[in-house]
């Protein structure tokens, strides 16, 4: 019998938690419950599930640099509850309005009480401050109807990263109950906008996937556009007019320094990372003619030109396996979407609907390509990589530049208001439901969603 199967008690559970520094340490996956395992149902966003999230218990409350652990227990529950609610799949209760639970209850829920509320699922947990000052967060998911535990997780985090423990817990619950991959514990780079329409101040900024931990990177003295997080989150590709001309830079977040991706007298724009972070895709206009190029991210490679049509070939996004690139071109007379091999061979058009098609973005799940369709208004939609199955997800005056959640289930984009030019960041489920605005301190555009953090 495995060690894990023996551990039903909190005390022994704690012994399993492996602490590390930067990345969130997670316990090995818990064993599958022996009996009454509920079957995973097909993911269906039309069916919302009710889930209760009482405040996490702080067994011996202690102060931390991020506040008292008892307060953190409530805040973590609030983030879990808010993440799950925002996914559109769950109706959440708590922590406000729910009673405090006792420590013993964490591993032995009062199913009868919760059944009567009524709720289908229950999340309970604890926060403990360790001798090293780090937080240990335990997180348990129970099926109230079946009266059993379905998921348990433990995390060891520095107090300042308490939100990440909450996101990891919410991710585990979301994955368990929907069968989808996680996405809450991830970050977004975007352009924060302010000022009048003809003199817009545009700053590079980053935030967590729920808008928390917001941070401006550039000060707005020069226009910044179209950021992309590297897969490791260590750097950001973006366009800056810092020397007066549009050029792509790679910004090192820790060092706070940036460099040009390639020395060139020509404008460079529309940057993207390859999925492994080794290659940078970009567009460059030479004598007015724009083509798609790639270059090693190491900083000392030679650019490789991938397209050569006389029109505008621009943008581009790698398939998750890195073998193909989707991009846009007006070689046919108007903007349309094309796919090519990563070496530039076998270029073929895939969009044939009414209007123009722009800003293609390959889903991390490989099955779909998101795009902006321009037919009067701008709408965000998806199609399969062969161009079939086109669907439009939004309907507004100007929705532009989709970016995928790391699980390929949610799409973020920005919306421009007619007249004022004010921008805001929105997200929508793949089904077109649960459209909602992301909170940002000022206007926002050009969102770019990064991968799930380790």
């Amino acid at each position, binding site marked *: 019998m495995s060690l894990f199967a023996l551990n039903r008690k909190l005390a022994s559970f704690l012994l399993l938690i492996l602490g590390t520094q930067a990345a969130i340490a997670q316990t090995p996956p818990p064993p599958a419950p022996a009996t009454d395992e509920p079957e995973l149902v097909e993911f269906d966003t039309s069916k919302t599930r009710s889930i209760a999230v009482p405040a996490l218990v702080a067994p011996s409350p202690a102060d931390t640099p991020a506040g008292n652990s008892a307060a953190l227990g409530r805040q973590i529950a609030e983030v879990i509850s808010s993440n799950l609610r925002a996914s559109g799949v769950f109706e959440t209760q708590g922590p406000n309005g729910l009673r405090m639970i006792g420590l013993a209850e964490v591993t032995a829920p009062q199913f009868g009480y919760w059944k009567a509320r009524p709720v289908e699922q229950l999340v309970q947990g604890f926060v403990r401050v360790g001798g090293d000052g780090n937080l240990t967060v335990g997180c348990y998911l129970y099926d109230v109807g079946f009266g059993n535990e379905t998921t348990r997780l433990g995390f060891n985090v520095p107090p300042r990263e308490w939100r990440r423990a909450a996101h990891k817990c919410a991710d585990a619950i979301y994955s368990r109950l929907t069968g989808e991959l996680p996405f809450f514990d991830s970050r977004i780079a975007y352009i924060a906008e302010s000022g009048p329409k003809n003199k817009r101040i545009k700053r590079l900024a980053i935030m967590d996937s729920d808008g928390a931990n917001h941070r401006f990177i550039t000060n707005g003295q020069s226009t910044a556009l179209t950021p992309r997080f590297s897969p490791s989150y260590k750097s950001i590709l973006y366009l800056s007019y810092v020397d007066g001309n549009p050029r792509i830079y790679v910004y090192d977040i820790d060092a706070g320094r940036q460099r040009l991706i390639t020395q060139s007298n020509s404008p460079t*724009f529309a940057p993207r990372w390859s999925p492994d972070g080794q290659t940078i895709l970009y567009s460059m206009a030479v004598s007015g003619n724009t083509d798609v190029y790639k270059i090693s991210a190491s900083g000392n490679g030679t650019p490789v030109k991938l397209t050569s049509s006389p029109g505008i070939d621009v943008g581009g996004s790698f398939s998750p396996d890195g073998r193909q690139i989707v991009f846009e071109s007006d070689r046919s007379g108007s903007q349309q979407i094309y796919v090519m091999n990563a070496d530039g061979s076998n270029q073929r058009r895939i969009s044939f609907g009414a209007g123009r098609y722009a800003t293609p973005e390959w889903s991390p799940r490989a099955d779909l390509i998101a795009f902006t369709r321009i037919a009067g208004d701008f709408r965000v939609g998806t199609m399969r990589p062969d161009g079939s199955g086109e669907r439009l997800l939004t309907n507004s005056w100007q929705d532009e530049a989709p970016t995928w959640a790391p699980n390929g289930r949610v799409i973020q984009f920005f919306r421009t208001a007619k007249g004022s030019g004010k921008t805001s960041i929105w997200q929508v489920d793949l089904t077109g439901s649960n459209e909602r605005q992301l909170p940002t301190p000022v206007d926002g555009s050009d969102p770019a969603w990064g991968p799930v953090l380790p």
Partner: protein
Amino acid sequence: MTKNTIKMAALLLASTALIAGCGKKKVDTLPPAAEGTDYGQTPTDPNANAAGQIIPGSQEDFLQQVGQFGDRILFETDRFNVDAEDQATLQRQAQWLAQYPNTRITVEGHADERGTRDYNLALGERRANSAKNFLVSIGVDASRIQTVSYGKERPSALGSDEQAWAQNRRAVTVTIR
């Protein structure tokens, strides 16, 4: 406001024979007064000397010599071709440049807001190059001309309508001090 608009329209018709009467680019509402670059106006005019006179060869002089809106050519949606009317505008610019052979220029290419960001950057660059190529073809030394695309980032007219978009699809010549 209506009165002012009419007044300004009348002024435009009187002063810019180049633009008036052309179906493609007729504008009923005027763009703001030409101001060199479309942003970053300085409160004191650096091109005027102490007596308030325009210095020959300056940006102010350029704007005065090429006439109102003579610093820019306009384009149709997604297009970048220089038509006969644009050529006349650029010829006047070239004449001025011939008088000041040491002056260099930047051609700023712009697009309207009804295009996606990256495509508009490419389109602005294409438009700026169209203007540059024509200027070179009529004798302006290519080394005197640089281009920059602002895509849809720096609109000249602020509305979200056909008239504003027509004014924003432009290539603007700015002298470099």
